[in-house]
């Protein structure tokens, strides 16, 4: 690919200016970053507006902005499931998460696993929840780095050096971006990320609004765009008499994904950093504005299809390396003037910094609180706690970088697919525990989690990790269901049945350190 100097210059200026802002932000304030509550949760200080930018920048990741339109571009209507999913997640956020925030605030919990340990007094269950979170998050960080890689390729940034042992090394730009990410995360924590998320929000909205106005004008209007899409891609297929068909896959994908979204450690970290319950509730009706942007971005996949970027020789190499994920960069290069393509690429590049940082911070928090402090150094000082979290967040980023640079990118995508299935299995321990603690027993929750993990992994593996829609045969019907959801159903059944038996047999007192009034 040929280099695009104008786009590249605009991108670099925006990227380094924003990262620098994040780095210097905490130097202007008097924040004690040797405290985990400050570095890893922003001192639980973010008001409605900052929380809106932070949560929006956190859960609408750069990879989402690349992969959702790519799915529309390649498969059509099914890719639009991201829209109902990110609408329906907010009633859940509104109802359940203020309770979780309250108890975390009162008891000083930093992670979801902290809450699980407090609620059930079980170190093992807390470890299961923490480990699931870390393992599910690392490939997700890798995908953010991949989003950057795609953007760099779009700008024709090819720097290859010949290293003595490794040979030709292509990922110098990614390595630079990684160092920027690592430095500002390490030094500024969630405070710095909050500043960067404001820049991300502004850039995303500017790029999206320009795209949905400018590109349709170039392509002759929305009717021309949709007319260019072959009809099997335009709607979901219909089921047959004994197969419930793509409609049920669509619904199950939406429901499974919405249940998983706020269980991801980076979402929990974002929610816990809010300054009050009302901030979370207000964001439950303010954040759908990001879903609106996502819906428009999804349609960009159809615009790329209508523009015919796949057949253009100048983008052939990009599609060859990144597959349909190259559709959006190709569309931007094709439809925008170079300087604005640079702005749009910066929206993705900076868009990757925010979730990647919060994911790494939340992995650091989980490791420190639920593994290091629990099993290795119970009496460590707050300063040690904070330092360990910083080092661990760096380690998770290095692991993610390893995925992208050393392994095939398909591994990261497959692991992320598994990660969604896995994180969903923590729902009974984290969310149902808010409502029915007496009907749940840690042994039941653990076995339910185990059953869900095994069943979900097995279903995904039997599909060769290419899809997560596993056809379940029930009463003569075939139900193509998202594996995360069917595994979760099994998990919940096992959890309640085993808990019922365990509660009936055991006379040991409950180990719940929380009180009903902690949740209000």
């Amino acid at each position, binding site marked *: 690919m040929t280099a695009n100097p104008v786009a590249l210059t605009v991108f670099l200026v925006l990227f380094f200016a924003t990262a620098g802002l994040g780095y210097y932000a905490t130097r202007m304030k008097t924040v004690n970053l040797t405290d985990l509550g400050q570095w890893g949760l922003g001192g639980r200080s973010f008001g409605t507006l900052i929380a809106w930018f932070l949560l929006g920048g956190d859960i609408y990741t750069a990879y989402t902005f690349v992969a959702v339109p790519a799915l529309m571009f390649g498969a059509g*209507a099914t890719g*639009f499931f991201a*829209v*109902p999913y990110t*609408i*329906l997640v*907010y*009633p859940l956020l*509104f*109802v359940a998460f203020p309770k979780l925030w309250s108890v975390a605030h009162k008891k000083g919990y930093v992670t979801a696993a902290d809450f699980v340990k407090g609620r059930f007094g079980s170190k093992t269950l807390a470890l299961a929840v923490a480990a699931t979170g870390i393992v599910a998050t690392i490939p997700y960080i890798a995908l953010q780095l991949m989003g950057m890689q795609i953007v760099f390729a779009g700008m024709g940034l090819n720097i290859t050096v010949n290293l003595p042992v490794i040979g030709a090394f292509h990922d110098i730009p990614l390595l630079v971006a990684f160092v920027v990410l690592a430095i500002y995360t390490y030094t500024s924590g969630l405070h710095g990320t909050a500043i960067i998320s404001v820049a991300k929000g502004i850039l995303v909205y500017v790029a999206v609004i320009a795209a949905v106005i400018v590109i349709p004008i170039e392509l002759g*209007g*929305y*009717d*021309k*765009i*949709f*007319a260019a899409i072959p009809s099997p891609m*335009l*709607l*979901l297929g219909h089921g047959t008499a004994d197969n419930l068909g793509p*409609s*049920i896959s*669509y*619904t199950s994908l*939406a*429901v499974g994904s919405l249940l998983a979204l706020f269980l991801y450690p980076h979402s929990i970290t974002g929610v816990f950093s809010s300054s009050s319950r*009302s901030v979370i*509730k*207000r964001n*439950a*009706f*303010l954040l*759908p*504005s990001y*879903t*609106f942007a996502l*819906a*428009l971005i999804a*349609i960009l996949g159809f615009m790329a299809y209508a523009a015919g970027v796949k057949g253009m020789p100048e983008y052939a190499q990009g599609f060859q390396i990144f597959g349909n994920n190259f559709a959006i960069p190709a569309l931007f290069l094709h439809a925008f003037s170079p300087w604005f393509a640079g702005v749009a690429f910066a929206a993705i590049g900076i868009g990757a910094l925010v979730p990647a940082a919060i994911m790494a911070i939340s992995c650091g928090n989980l490791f420190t609180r639920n593994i290091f402090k629990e099993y290795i150094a119970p009496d460590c000082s707050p300063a040690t706690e904070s330092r360990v979290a910083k080092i661990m967040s760096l380690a998770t980023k290095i692991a993610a970088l390893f995925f992208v640079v050393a392994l095939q990118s398909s591994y990261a995508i497959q692991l992320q697919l598994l990660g969604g299935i896995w994180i969903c299995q923590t729902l009974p321990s984290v969310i149902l525990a808010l409502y029915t603690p007496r009907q749940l027993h840690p042994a039941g929750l653990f076995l339910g989690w185990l059953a869900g993990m095994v069943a979900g992994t097995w279903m995904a593996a039997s599909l060769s990790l290419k899809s997560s829609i596993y056809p379940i045969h029930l009463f003569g019907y075939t139900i193509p269901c998202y594996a995360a959801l069917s595994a979760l159903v099994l998990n919940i059944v096992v959890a309640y049945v085993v808990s019922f038996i365990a509660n009936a047999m055991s006379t040991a007192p409950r180990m719940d350190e929380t009180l009903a009034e902690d949740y209000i």
Partner: protein
Amino acid sequence: MNKKKGAAAKGGVSMSKGKEMDEQPRRRGFHPIYLFLVLPFVALLWVPFYNRIEPEIFGIPFFYWYQTLWTFLGTACTIPVYFYEEKKRK
């Protein structure tokens, strides 16, 4: 036409929920206003209802504009519940 159909379906669900609530002894903290939070699920989880091209707006098929419209309607459903809870706290 389609809107009416949707409204009827929603009404059906909320009514049956309401009945259940009346038969049981009143649970503390439940108020019918929370049924607003159920509406988006009714509107978006029954896919065959909106898996269609017509009616189009500016050439955009129903499937796409209907779901996109719900980003705003979802917000509109949450706001009354928010104000109810804020009022209750005072």
